[in-house]
Each structure stands twice: as C-alpha cells, then as structure tokens.
C-alpha cells in the first residue's frame, strides 16, 4: 500500500482460548473489543483477507478434537467450518502416516488469485486452498520432496515446545509462483520455491544454526519469523533463533543486522515487523536469549527496538511500557503493523496483554488486558 491508509483498523487476536477482534477508527485512540470467538478453542492465527477486507480465516484446534479452519465472510459476524480442513494424505499400508496436530499459520494468496490461501501446520506441512479456505490440499511439491524428511524433523519430542511448525508462508507480490516458507524444529530453515511449490531449495547461507557443529549449514536453522517487504520484494528480513538478519535479493546470503543491537539486549526474539512503505524501517521485540533462554524482556524491562536504516543502527522504544519487573514474552505471530501514517504497531503477550502505538513506537499504551495467552496479533485495514 504505497499511500497511507486512513480508514478504520482491525486488530485480530488469536489466543490459546479463542479469538477476539478490536476495532478503531483511523485515529486509533479508542478501541472496541469484541469476542470471544470460539471460546475454548486453541486459536493460532486469525487473518483478514486484504483482497476483500471481509473474509477471515481462523486456524483452530479444539482441545483433543483435532485441527480445523473456520471461515467468515462478514468480518467475524458469522462462521462456518472448512468442509475439508488441512490433513495429510493417507499413508500406504505399512507406512507411517502424518497427522496434522494443529494449523499454525495462514497466508492469503497472491492478489491475482483471489480465492487462494496457504496454511502451514504442525508437524510441518504446506497446504493450499483455492476456494477461500473451504477445501484444503497438501502442496505435493513440498510433501513429496525427497529432502522434506531432512528439512522437517521426524521426532516431535526433539522439536519446538508446541511441535515443529511450517510458518511465514510468503508470496512475492510480483509473482504468484515465487514462495518462501520458514520451518522451525530442530532442523529447518528458510526455503524458496520459484514454481508455486513444485520445487524447493534452502535459502540459509550466512545464517547461524543452533546446536550443530557446523554453525552455517545449508539447512538446520530456526527462523522464528520471515517477512518480505511488499513494495520492495527483493528485501527480506528474519528474526531467527540466532539473531536478526536481512537479505537483499538477488543475493542469497543473510546479513546479521542484529549485531548492531546493544549487546546487553541482544538480538534474540520471535516477531519482526516491517514498515508498510519504508523497506529500511523494521521493528523487533527483543527477548532474553542468555543462560537458559528465559525468552522474556531483557532485565524485566520491555522495549521495542526500531531501525530506520536497514539494521545499521537501532533505537529503543519503551515509553508507556512498564519500567521494570515486566517479564513479557511475545510470540512470532503476535506483533503487527497497520498501514496508517504514522504507522500503528501492536503486540500481544503470553500473559494476555495487548499493547499498541499509534506513532510508530514512540509511545505505547495497553488496549486490552486479561486475555488468554496470545498466539497472534494481525492488524488490518477494515476500510479505505
């Protein structure tokens, strides 16, 4: 969106116990909280389709009832379950089959494919819907890739706490065939496809991998969150398990821009958020990656950090946030930006707090509290 938005804004919050929606006018001073939506369901991602601004998809898991996707065509007023939720192909007799534990990530498809959505699951699966999320099919090029079993971990016990995940499904706005994904487990990394998912190759050069003898393997990294700039699609950023990175295509090597963060804060975290118009401006929410990795705000003093020069320098933004004894954790999907000028920023914590800034991080205020553990926060324009 090259021109700043000035209409109403929605903030879509998915939590461990259901989903909520906050709405505000363009001023973004007062917020109306509505919900819960599907109270008690484990909601991982609630995403508004930017192509129609009406359709919502919710990635959910109901206790022990397994994974599913719910759909709304009226901004959340009513819902229907997908007729065929994401599910792996049935295994041949005698072979172990994979079972989707939960749908983790939802990405609207390319602007030229208005009913297409992608979903990433745990364990790592890539799914595609061509009917606005009603029926889902596995993307066979990833599922049957001869290296998939190496890229995606086999033993979930060796993986991330809630299971290995496929996330950060990212589509080049210039080309619907050009896809990126992130895989987090004990193996994983960033992977790229130039043919709509038929073939894949690792894209991890220059990026450190945790817990392996060779710190720079071809794959085995743990990207926490990958973002591509919509107006400069050759610019990629990732918040990785091992730092903050940037890549400028056509180069295929990551540069660790987190080295320029204050050493006492470090460059470990989960989300990374891009300015909707300026590809040099990026926000992160650092968390403590020292000792046994508490993954809380360093020293109990939460702050967002922003760079406005593509990672050469970083500035602390903590006005309005608690000054001390605040041990916040923000998950990889739980930080987002709107498209206004100045840009609005939003992040949700695992302790159920939702924080917002309507001036690009200069001042923060809490706009919701006492929610369940927040998995994801997505800001979106509700009107033009």
């Amino acid at each position: 969106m090259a021109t700043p938005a000035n209409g109403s804004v929605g903030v879509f919050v998915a939590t461990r116990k259901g989903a909520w929606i906050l709405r505000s006018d363009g001023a973004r001073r007062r917020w109306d909280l509505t919900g819960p939506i599907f109270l008690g369901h484990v909601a991982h991602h609630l995403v508004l389709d930017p192509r129609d601004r009406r359709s919502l998809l919710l990635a959910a898991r109901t206790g022990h009832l397994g994974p599913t996707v719910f759909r709304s065509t009226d901004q959340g007023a009513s819902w229907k379950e997908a007729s065929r939720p994401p599910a792996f192909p049935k295994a041949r007799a005698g072979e172990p089959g994979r079972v989707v534990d939960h749908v983790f990530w939802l990405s609207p498809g390319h602007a030229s494919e208005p009913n297409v959505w992608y979903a990433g699951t745990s364990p790592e699966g890539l799914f595609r819907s061509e009917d606005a999320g009603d029926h889902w099919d596995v993307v066979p090029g990833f599922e049957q890739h001869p290296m998939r079993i190496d890229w995606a971990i086999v033993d979930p016990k060796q993986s991330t706490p809630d299971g290995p995940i496929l996330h950060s499904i990212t589509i080049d706005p210039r080309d619907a065939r050009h896809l990126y994904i992130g895989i987090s487990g004990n193996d994983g990394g960033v992977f790229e496809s130039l043919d709509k998912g038929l073939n894949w190759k690792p894209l991890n050069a220059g990026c450190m991998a945790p817990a392996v003898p060779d710190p720079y393997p071809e794959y085995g990294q743990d990207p926490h969150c990958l973002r591509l700039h919509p107006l400069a699609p050759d610019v990629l950023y990732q918040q990785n398990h091992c730092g903050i990175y940037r890549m400028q295509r056509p180069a295929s090597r990551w540069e660790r821009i987190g080295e320029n963060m204050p050493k006492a804060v470090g460059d470990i975290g989960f989300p990374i958020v891009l300015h909707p118009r300026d590809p040099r401006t990026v926000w992160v929410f650092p968390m403590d990656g020292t000792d046994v990795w508490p993954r809380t705000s360093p020293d109990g003093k939460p702050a967002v950090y922003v760079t406005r020069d593509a990672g050469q320098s970083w500035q602390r933004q903590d006005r309005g946030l608690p000054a001390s004894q605040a041990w916040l954790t923000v998950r990889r999907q739980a930080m987002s930006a709107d498209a206004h000028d100045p840009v609005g920023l939003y992040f949700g914590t695992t302790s159920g707090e939702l924080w917002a800034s309507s001036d690009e991080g200069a001042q923060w205020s809490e706009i919701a509290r006492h929610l369940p553990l927040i998995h994801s926060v997505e800001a979106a324009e509700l009107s033009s």
Partner: protein
Amino acid sequence: MKVWIPQALLSYTDQRKLVEAHGATLAELLTDLDRRHPGIRFRMIDEQGGLRPHVRLFVNHDDVRQLDVPLRATDEVHIFQALSGG
C-alpha cells in the same frame, strides 16, 4: 441405530445429543454419521484412520478401539470425549 453425541460435538448435530446413523460396522456408521452431520468424523478420526486422543467409542457398554467391529440394528453407540488441560 442410536448414536449418543458428547457435548463438544453438539455443534455438528444442531445441539441434539441423540441422533440416528446406520452401518454394518462402526466404520460405516461413522461414515453415515458424517454424511448426516458433515465434519463430525474428522473430529474423532484423524486422516490416517486413527482414533484421536481422548476419544472413546462404546458399542452398548463395550469400549471399542477397532472401527471394523460389526454392528447390529439394536446396538447403541456412545461417543465420549475426555477433554483435559488448563
């Protein structure tokens, strides 16, 4: 035959706790149940044909783990789901 539906699945049966479905085996009955109440089977049986964790199926008073168990027209099927977690 009669099929008793647990609370967590009532959204699939218009809140009816007791519904009808038919089949010569439990597998066939669940297929028929899904035809009448779309989506309900996948909440109990995963894509590899396995019973989801904490789902229990009873034919009359017998806890059944295999879906190929034969059924008689007079049998009643009870579906239970033991939800847990804080």
